[in-house]
């Protein structure tokens, strides 16, 4: 069933990354639950995007820049590499060209992408690879005909789980820094 499933995995990692990024950036639970996402994958490629509006404002672009880093969750050392400023050589192995451009546009705290990737790893660890890949296989070939068909972000990661993953990642990073 590859490569569509692997592309589904890549796009699902963006989805998880966007979820934790939006929570980190302070989006309210109510607004989070209203977010619909563009999420497609097949053998030829995939795309992830957050819908404009719906209370996002300028959070949308910042969340997209942060979630561009999210596929790095597949690399256990990624948060450390980001913290040390040594992540550049691995970017082409994990991120697409547009991902890399978006990631480089991030002008906020340089440690935030490390936190987002670490939070994604928390989610992946709790799901386990089999569930992660099954969800990725479900994403492979998903199709939408109308805006109302688009899935809600909370289906792929609810606010509470994104919050929990962020809190755990933050705690781990504080332990490492101490």
């Amino acid at each position: 069933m590859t490569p569509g499933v692997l592309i589904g995995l890549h796009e699902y990692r963006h989805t998880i990354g966007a979820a934790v990024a939006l929570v980190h950036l302070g989006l309210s639970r109510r607004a989070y639950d209203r977010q619909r996402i563009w999420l497609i994958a097949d053998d030829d490629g995939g795309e992830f995007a957050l819908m404009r509006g719906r209370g996002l404002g300028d959070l949308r672009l910042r969340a997209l820049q942060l979630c561009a880093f999210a596929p790095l969750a597949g690399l256990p050392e990624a948060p450390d590499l980001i913290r040390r400023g040594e992540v550049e050589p691995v970017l082409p192995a994990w991120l697409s060209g547009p991902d890399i451009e978006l990631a480089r546009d991030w002008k906020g705290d340089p440690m935030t992408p490390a936190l987002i990737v670490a939070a994604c790893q928390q989610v992946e660890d709790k799901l386990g690879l089999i569930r992660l890949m099954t969800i990725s296989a479900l994403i492979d070939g998903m199709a939408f005909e109308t805006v109302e068909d688009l899935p809600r972000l909370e289906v792929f990661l609810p606010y509470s789980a994104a919050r929990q993953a962020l809190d755990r990642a933050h705690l781990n990073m504080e332990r490492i820094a101490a």
Partner: protein
Amino acid sequence: MARWGGGIAAAALVGRTAELIEQRDLPGWQAMRQKAVTAQWLAEVITHETVEAASETAFGELAGRGDRPEDWYAFTARFVA
């Protein structure tokens, strides 16, 4: 697609990932390769039947189950039951 401007795409990434991972001089190469190989293997062994069975659970049923993270994670287990 203009409506969704700012989206991110992953065309042709899978092949390039495998190629770069084989260069072996990247930081974290060993862990990277191990996880990528496992994901590749799982992607190959997941059958259409698995996906059809999981589709019957449907993403829609995950909606609104997130008040407690444990409930949501537990419910995702139905995808592989």
